[in-house]
């Protein structure tokens, strides 16, 4: 089974803004500090799909085109990443060729959890 190396990165507001432009998702909870401050989150949060991209990056680094052509991902968003968070995506092998995957922040809070797998026939 391929070795899947963790991916670590720091989420910044600039990154969130760039993701908003790239994805077309300009929900003010992500990009408008004054709006976001008045919400229960108390400030802007990263798009879940931006945080999730670190799992796909990790799997693509390990499996290359096989991930692009046969990868499966099933996750739950459990908590948001915020500007300044250092997030780490990691994978733990499971029986049957699956991986348990997660993204956690610098405090160990799990932001995303789920499973990923890649077809061995691809």
């Amino acid at each position, binding site marked *: 089974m391929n070795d899947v190396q963790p991916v670590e*990165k720091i989420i910044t507001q600039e*990154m969130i803004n*760039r*993701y908003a*432009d*790239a*994805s*077309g*998702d300009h*929900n003010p909870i992500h990009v408008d500090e004054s709006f976001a401050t008045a*919400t229960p989150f108390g400030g802007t949060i990263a798009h*879940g*799909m*931006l945080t*999730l*991209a*670190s799992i*796909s*990056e990790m799997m*693509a*680094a390990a499996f*290359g*085109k096989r*991930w*692009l*052509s*046969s*990868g*499966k*991902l*099933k*996750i*739950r*968003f459990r908590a948001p990443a915020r500007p300044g968070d250092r997030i780490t995506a990691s994978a733990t092998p499971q029986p049957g060729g699956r991986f348990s995957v997660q993204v956690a922040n610098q405090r160990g809070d799990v932001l995303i959890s789920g499973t990923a797998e890649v077809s061995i026939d691809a």
Partner: protein
Amino acid sequence: VTTSPRTPLPDIPKGQEFPPVAFKVTSADLEAYLDSVDDKNQCYASGNGEHYLPPLLLTALALKQLLLAVELPPGSVHTGQEIEMRQATRVSEKLVMQSRVAQRSERAGLVISTLEFKVVTEAGDAALEGRATVVIPG
């Protein structure tokens, strides 16, 4: 300037299908995405000058197409995501997204909707299938 009316997601019943939407992902789209998520993997280059698309870029742009028809009320939270890649897709490839509301339920004043989508190639082959679950304040 005219805008197309969008239907709030909580008002859309289970089973409703949306009209297919054709789209292409450009090199600029790919570069902007990879820059925004800080992904430096080399696997997106096919070796003959073409570029493969990251699955989550395809997912994000498919959801973007969907949001042209669907309004997400303030406070909506994306709680779950499933994707299954069937084949790698490339920059400038003609793609079509098909989508529908797969599930809709109400609980504790919240509406929970699951959007199911499928991206197919011009030849009609499935490239990616996915489900996004969204919780919306009632």
